[in-house]
């Protein structure tokens, strides 16, 4: 049972979503009732319960979900299991692809085997970040972005046009951010390519840019309340009013908004970065056929995408998923065209160089 099913306020909405999934045209009958199992590593609520039950009933494939809580642990676990992993499908964020691919942990995705591939919004399925070494590596399911979230009772919308507000004297001791993510945003804010792809041929320039961003954050260190790591932390800081505004991922911020907390989020004028959670098939997966059956099934209907959005607060990559959201949920997962104009996706190509520079910079900022 997921948490939504027993919060009275949310119960009706989830039950309705569950019912529509169950009542939707039977899209799985075509699949062979092959039996066996499929092993998935994913976040809590990323596989909607109603979907899982229906999938198991109709295909005879047992779905084993192993709950994980971050990307690094999945990588470590998979690396420790390689070359004979126990897992078929993992949940990797698009900009972390390269690390998994370089270590030979992912199998390229054969999109021809997924008749429902076209149900994904092409913004996500055909975007430039998603193709590496000439292959697709994952099926996009949810999309997130780096946003500026603020308590609407303490901060006015006029003040959050720029990321600079995070570093203003007015909100001294009332801000929080994830340093790694902030480094990319600061580079973007300074007019550079935060993905560092442009500087692949010029490591000296890359180092100088990271240094500049680092010096900026060190200079602004007295103003920050907390460098945090997880979504639950920033949510708790907002609830406790330990902070008034923060850099956040849209998912955790949306969850607070949907719960009625006076919070809003925006993408400031300097722009920001987006990322996409994808389902990926492990290299040498034990049940590859079942993995494809599962992926095709989960992509089948926008209701499933909407159910994932309701649970996580992240934006569904499915075409038409928004039609199944409540007004509040729609509001917390949509941005104006003006805001989206400067949104870029994180890219993996230069990650080795970028994080080789950013990680020590992060240590230096923490130590400063």
């Amino acid at each position, binding site marked *: 049972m997921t948490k939504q099913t027993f*919060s009275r306020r949310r119960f009706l909405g989830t039950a309705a979503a569950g019912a529509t999934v169950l009542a939707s045209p039977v899209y799985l009958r075509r699949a062979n009732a092959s039996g066996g199992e499929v092993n998935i590593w994913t976040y*809590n609520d990323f596989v909607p319960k109603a979907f899982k039950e229906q999938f198991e009933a109709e295909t005879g494939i047992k779905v084993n979900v192993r709950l994980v*809580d971050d990307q690094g642990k999945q990588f470590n676990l998979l690396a*420790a299991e390689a070359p004979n992993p126990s897992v078929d499908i993992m949940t990797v964020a698009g900009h972390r692809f390269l690390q998994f691919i370089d270590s030979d942990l992912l199998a390229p995705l054969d999109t021809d085997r997924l008749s429902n591939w076209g149900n994904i919004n092409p913004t996500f399925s055909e975007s430039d970040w998603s193709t590496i070494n000439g292959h697709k590596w994952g099926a996009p399911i949810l999309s997130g972005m780096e946003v500026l979230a603020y308590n609407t009772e303490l901060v006015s919308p006029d003040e959050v046009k720029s990321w600079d507000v995070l570093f203003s004297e007015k909100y001294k001791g009332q801000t929080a951010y994830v340093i790694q993510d902030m480094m990319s945003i600061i580079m973007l804010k300074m007019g550079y390519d935060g993905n560092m792809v442009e500087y692949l041929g010029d490591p000296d320039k890359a180092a100088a840019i990271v240094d500049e961003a680092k010096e900026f954050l060190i200079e602004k260190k007295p103003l920050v309340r907390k460098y945090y790591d997880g979504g*639950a932390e920033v949510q708790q800081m907002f*609830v406790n009013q330990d902070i008034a505004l923060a850099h956040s991922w849209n998912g955790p911020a949306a969850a*607070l908004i949907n719960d009625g907390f006076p919070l809003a989020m925006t993408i400031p004028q300097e722009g920001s970065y987006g990322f996409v959670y994808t389902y990926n098939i492990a290299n040498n997966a034990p049940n590859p056929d079942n993995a494809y059956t599962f992926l095709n099934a989960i992509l089948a209907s926008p209701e499933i995408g909407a159910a994932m959005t309701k649970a996580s607060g992240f934006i569904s990559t499915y075409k038409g998923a928004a039609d199944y959201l409540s007004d509040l949920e729609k509001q917390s997962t949509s941005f104006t065209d003006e805001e989206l104009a400067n949104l870029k996706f994180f890219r993996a190509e230069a990650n080795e160089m970028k994080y080789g520079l950013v990680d020590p910079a992060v240590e230096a900022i923490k130590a400063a």
Partner: protein
Amino acid sequence: MTRGNRIFLSCIYWAFVLYVFVPLILMVLMGFKDSKFIGFPIRSWTLDWYTGVLGNTEVLSAFGYSVAIAVLSTLISVAVGTWIAVLLEGRKFFGRTAVFGLTVLPALVPGIISAIAFRIYARWLGIEPGMGAIIWAHAVHNVPFVALVVMARLSTLPKSQIEAARDLGADPVITFMRITLPYLVPAILGASIFCLLLSFDDFVRSFFLGGYDPTLPVLIFAKLKSGMSPEINAIATVALVLTAAIGIWAERFTRRLNKD
């Protein structure tokens, strides 16, 4: 002892009780909050989180799984840890320092390192991830705590008792079972509490060595990803009440056994 002293100390005790209980009371209280997030102010209340947890087979089976792992790994740790303590305490032999150093080793390795090291080592030994692997890792990790606590108690065992037993013709095994072990019981039970706690609360080793069934901390971490909700508080409260019930039952049960 002066009366003033006693009152002063009793104040400190109750202040300490307050310190350990206030966060706990907050935890129980937040389980009744009608919202997806814990924290003040609480605008409306609900019983749904608690009733939900009691009907949630995923949570209850994770709890049972964690209890089983804690009990079994503790039995192994206690047996091995006590044995090592008996070897090390008051005995001088070549390599004693090395054995002592190796004994406390697992307690010194940071969690994440120890978890990954265990995972790699388990693969090398051919141990499949799952319940057995978690029990093994917890048992190894907890041995140092048993050994340290038991050694401390053993160092205060009057030598005369051992010598008397030996003079009466008891062999080393019988002397250990009749004299040493009864003397060690308080330390062993204290150490068992450490082990049960460490195992029951362990996340990182359980995560790396586990299979598809989550232990309670693994489930809580996964749920935390979508926010610290009152549900997690309700889970922790229910787990606390259930462990207390098991503890009281075990205590009564052994008491009855002792009387028979």
